[in-house]
């Protein structure tokens, strides 16, 4: 392994650094807060020729992803980045990319949705598009963001997967926070990530009809294959992480991460940067003898249902803390966790859904302590609790 460089980067800059190392052929993006600095850095890299890529200044997010799909359809490695309203503006193209099995890699800066207008972080943008057929992963810090970009190409382009991948960073909390990041060498990334090769492309030697209509007799089979591909990504993600750990010395725990869940009675399940706030609270309560634990969901698709059951089935009460609400019911992460637990062979723990951080509302360490206290209180019949 070549020596890695330690650099002081924001989450967005770490993503840009990761993208450069992954050597995409085409980058198409439209700026939106808080994603903008990713594509500013990438534009600078293309300008100073430290990144040899086509950088397309498109007129909208819809066009950004459309351009990536077109480029992917000739076998190019592609990157785009967006956030919030921009992600929703891409919505129909998200399905085109996943349905066409084009392994576009995209960063999304998690940000609230209007109205009321707000540029700060929550996860309603990506979670409202959970069903678009993309692999969805949520980073906790800048280092993980960089590593996920490099891993994403290996996962998305794997022949068993061929599915686009969305790497989510909490707006501002990750995108704009500066951290010391280990930057791998280009030689190591090249050895880890070979060039993208696919047969699912336009090719003069093998002319193909691409992205066509499939009527009622054939359509469902394509959807079934797509589902199988995302399910099988679970295995590929673990394989890629293992290979990544061997080469770069940073090990990742698969679809989710657990802390003290083996004997925990009260567990908080969450995702993204807020896990970084929960972790020291769990350590503090543990030092006081409290049997508490943390589950950090990394991948929402494919969803770690077995891992969720293994981690939570023995607990007395579980709180799902998320920056999302599906109006009229509950948070989408909660729905998924609940569904996984319903398949457990034992009586599932009591479940509470803590909805917080909407529009960037702060979630403090004190708030997290209160959530653990709330989990210990007897059931009062409430399920969805706004914090």
């Amino acid at each position, binding site marked *: 392994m070549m020596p890695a460089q330690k650099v002081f980067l924001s989450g967005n800059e770490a993503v840009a650094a990761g993208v450069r190392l992954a050597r995409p052929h085409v980058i198409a993006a439209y700026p939106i807060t808080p994603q903008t600095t990713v594509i500013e850095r990438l534009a600078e890299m293309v300008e100073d020729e430290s990144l040899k890529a086509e950088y397309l200044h498109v007129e909208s997010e819809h066009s950004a992803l459309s351009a990536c799909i077109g480029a992917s359809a000739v076998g190019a490695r592609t990157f785009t980045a967006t956030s919030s309203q921009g992600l929703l503006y891409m919505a129909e193209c998200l399905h085109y990319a996943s349905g066409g099995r084009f392994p576009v890699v995209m960063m999304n800066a998690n940000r609230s949705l209007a109205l009321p207008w707000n540029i700060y972080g929550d996860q309603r943008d990506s979670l409202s598009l959970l069903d678009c057929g993309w692999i969805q992963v949520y980073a906790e810090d800048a280092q993980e963001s960089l590593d996920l970009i490099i891993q994403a190409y290996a996962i998305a382009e794997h022949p068993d997967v*061929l599915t686009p991948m969305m790497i989510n960073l909490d707006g501002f909390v990750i995108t704009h926070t500066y951290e010391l990041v280990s930057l791998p060498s280009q030689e190591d990334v090249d050895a880890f990530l070979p060039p993208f090769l696919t047969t699912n492309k336009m090719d003069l030697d093998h*002319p193909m009809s691409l992205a066509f209509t499939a009527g009622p007799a054939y359509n469902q*089979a394509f959807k079934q294959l797509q589902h199988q591909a995302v399910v099988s990504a679970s295995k590929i993600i673990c394989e890629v992480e293992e290979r990544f750990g061997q080469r770069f010395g940073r090990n990742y725990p698969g679809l989710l991460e657990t802390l003290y869940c083996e004997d925990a009675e009260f567990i908080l399940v969450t995702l993204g940067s807020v896990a970084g706030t929960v972790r020291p609270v769990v350590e503090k309560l543990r030092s006081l003898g409290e049997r508490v634990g943390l589950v950090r969901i990394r991948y929402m698709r494919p969803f770690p249902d077995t891992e969720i059951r293994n981690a939570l089935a023995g607990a007395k009460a579980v709180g799902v803390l998320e920056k999302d609400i599906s109006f009229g019911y509950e948070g989408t992460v909660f729905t998924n966790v609940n569904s996984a637990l319903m398949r457990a062979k034992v009586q599932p723990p009591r479940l509470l859904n803590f909805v917080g951080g909407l529009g960037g509302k702060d979630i403090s360490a004190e708030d997290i302590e209160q959530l653990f206290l709330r989990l210990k209180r007897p059931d009062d019949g409430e399920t969805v609790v706004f914090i």
Partner: protein
Amino acid sequence: MAMNYPVRQRSFKPPKDLAEYPVGIAFPAGHLVETNASWRSHRPVLDAGKCTNCRICWLLCPDGVIHTSKPGGLEIDYDYCKGCGICAKECRQKAIRMENEAL
């Protein structure tokens, strides 16, 4: 010959199970596996005796279904003709009449 139609591949076998489907929405180019004329209500019928082989119909047919390869005259490909009637309207010899097929 037909304008741009690839040869129909009658040998096409629909996939039997998921394993026979392509990865990605892709298929080798040049396959036309189904006829496409089911919404036609009137078919153009060519009177070879009146036809002078001027080929105005061949030139103006929006779907390219007038074949010129047959020795001795033109031939209309009813597998793809949509029945628009342009050929009949434009024919200077009035050699093409539209015949109601919906009856």
